[in-house]
């Protein structure tokens, strides 16, 4: 099987889903012949036509609302936001209509919102943020964030299969960095299920998105140094796999939550809340949160590099945790 990138896995998932199911179609800005700002939909308009890969006017509220309406009628729309940052412009239909309607009326919204998030590409405050925290905790929404090529494919396929609105946070920094074998069309990553990416016994890192690769890289060194760190990839941020987090902590007795979102945002709150309620008897050390300071994402390379978690910063945090 040939190697593909994380971005190509996303495109492959879109393509396979559209081949298999007529109801799947896409809405977004410049996703047609142009292929979207990152090329995620490159070639799809040629294959499926511009009636299925629909270029929209610049109106995030409008086309997210329209996706919900089409889903109401049994379609399975996928929306692309150019940058996850612009999800603030589509906020109301997501939380007011998308999240609450099934509970109120039984209407299903099989809608996927693709949101390219994350830093490392010098995007600055409006093109690099991690806004997943606004949706984590919102009843009725599902939030996923693949950290591997396989999950990029599998989570997207599962999101498309899902009858609830799913926000799919794809990490821009991983688009071309991660490579892996091309998942088969049957590949699905179950929504709601975390994965132990790497087993270990001395501490647990709970993370997602770009944190997965970072945790692996950073612990490659640490783990060589005699300690062994388990890495749990949440994959689904909401509703998340509490069991998996607790059972890893049960094993390791130490936990570090790693995220790229600023420390008081992201998935940290719900994970830390779980830990403080349910891991009391499991822990030998205070839980650690490794995440950027609470500011917007800065633009300058010097600033962004200092802001984002890195191998060095994570290693230091782990050392701290392990030496408690």
């Amino acid at each position, binding site marked *: 099987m040939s190697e593909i990138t994380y971005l190509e896995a996303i495109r492959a998932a879109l393509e396979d889903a559209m081949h298999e199911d007529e109801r799947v179609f896409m809405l977004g800005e410049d996703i047609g012949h142009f292929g979207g700002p990152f090329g995620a939909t490159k070639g799809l308009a040629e294959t499926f036509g511009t009636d299925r890969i629909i270029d*929209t006017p610049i*109106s995030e509220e409008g086309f997210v609302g329209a996706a919900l309406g089409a889903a109401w*009628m049994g379609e399975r729309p996928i929306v692309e936001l150019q940058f996850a940052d612009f999800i603030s412009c589509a906020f109301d239909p997501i939380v007011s209509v998308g999240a609450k309607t099934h*509970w109120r009326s039984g209407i299903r919204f099989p809608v996927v919102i693709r949101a390219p998030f994350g830093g490392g590409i010098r995007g600055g405050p409006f093109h690099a943020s991690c806004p997943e925290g606004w949706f984590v905790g919102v009843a*009725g929404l*599902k939030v996923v964030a693949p950290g591997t090529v396989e999950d990029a494919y599998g989570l997207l396929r599962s999101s498309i299969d899902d009858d609830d609105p799913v926000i799919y946070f794809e990490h821009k920094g991983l688009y071309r960095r991660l490579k892996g074998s091309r998942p088969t069309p049957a590949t699905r990553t179950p929504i709601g299920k975390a994965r132990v990416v790497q087993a270990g016994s001395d501490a647990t890192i709970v993370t997602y998105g770009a944190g997965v690769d970072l945790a692996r890289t950073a612990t490659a060194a640490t783990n060589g140094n005699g300690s062994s760190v388990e890495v749990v990839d949440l994959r689904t941020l909401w509703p998340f796999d509490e069991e998996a987090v607790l059972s890893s902590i049960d094993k390791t007795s130490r936990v570090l939550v790693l995220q790229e979102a600023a420390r008081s945002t992201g998935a940290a709150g719900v994970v830390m809340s779980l830990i403080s309620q349910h891991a009391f008897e499991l822990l030998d050390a205070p839980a650690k949160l490794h995440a950027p300071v609470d500011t917007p994402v800065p633009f300058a390379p010097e600033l962004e590099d200092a802001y984002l978690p890195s191998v060095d910063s994570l290693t230091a945090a782990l050392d701290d945790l392990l030496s408690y």
Partner: protein
Amino acid sequence: MSTEPASETQWREPDPPGSGVIPCVEAPAIPRETQLELLQLGLLQRLTEDRAMLLYRQGRIPGSYYTGRGQEAVGAAAGLCLGPDDVVAPLNRELSCHFARGVTVADVFRNFLARATGPTRGRDGNMHFGMPARGVFPLVSMLGVLCPVSVGAALAFKRRGEPRVALTFWGDGAMCTGDVHEGMNLAGVLDVPAVFVIQNNQYAYSTPTGREMVNTNIAERIEGGWSIPCQRVDGTDAIAAYAAIGEAVRRARDGDGPHAVEAFSLRMHGHAAHDDASYVPSELLDHFANRRDPIKRLRKRLELDGVPQSELDELHARVSDEVAEGLAEAERAPPADPDTIQDGVYAMPPSHA
């Protein structure tokens, strides 16, 4: 382009002289049966709301309570213009539209009374309910947001080549929301079979239309700003409204893209039960109550057209009974059940196992 706010009480020629009820326009082309149905639906709304208002004042309806008094004709007309496969997203003032879709009085009261077997199972109140099986989307309070949602439904019809339309309503006030702009623009660009019925009832809560927008001729604005054909119609005239909305629906269904209708009326109650609407000039209210009450106007037209008083009285009595029976049925329904509160948050509950 007019920058003068249009006078609030008048939107075209002055009303005919006199003080009596102004009958609906004559429309021999619209079957008598349809006209009677319009009356029945309007009455159903009127009598259901009157009853509900009493219940509210007795403390038997929790929360708040809203009526569509003075606007019953519009929802009824829209409801009858739609076919069984069409879909609609009514708001607070369009109870008659629900009835036209086959929602029953008991359904409605089960929602008002927050019963377990009501359309929202007690999870939401007031007019905040839909009937998915009948193509009725549940109201979402955030004004404007149902515009893009219904555009999306219309897009689905277009994609599949189905001759169906999606209709939604909004008010003069909601006309100012960004969603309405994005939704209408999208409808135009995607050229979908969406129909927008704008209920210009002269007020948004306490705010008269002239303080919501510069040019209060909404039809003019919709044509000029969004290139969507928009007919302005007398919303207190059920026959005229039926004709205008019918044409919009037909055209949209025929592939002629989105269409709109501005229905001009007056909100004859306060915004909700707690609001005495003292900010509405009493002459304006009186004028509409005496001469432009949509129920009276339609009845007058039918009388002029030779329908015997007795038949109309009987219709009224039948509707009145239907309301009483529907309420009684709703009152027999069990209260909402707290143990089920978490059911249905997700259509597919994620299994973490």
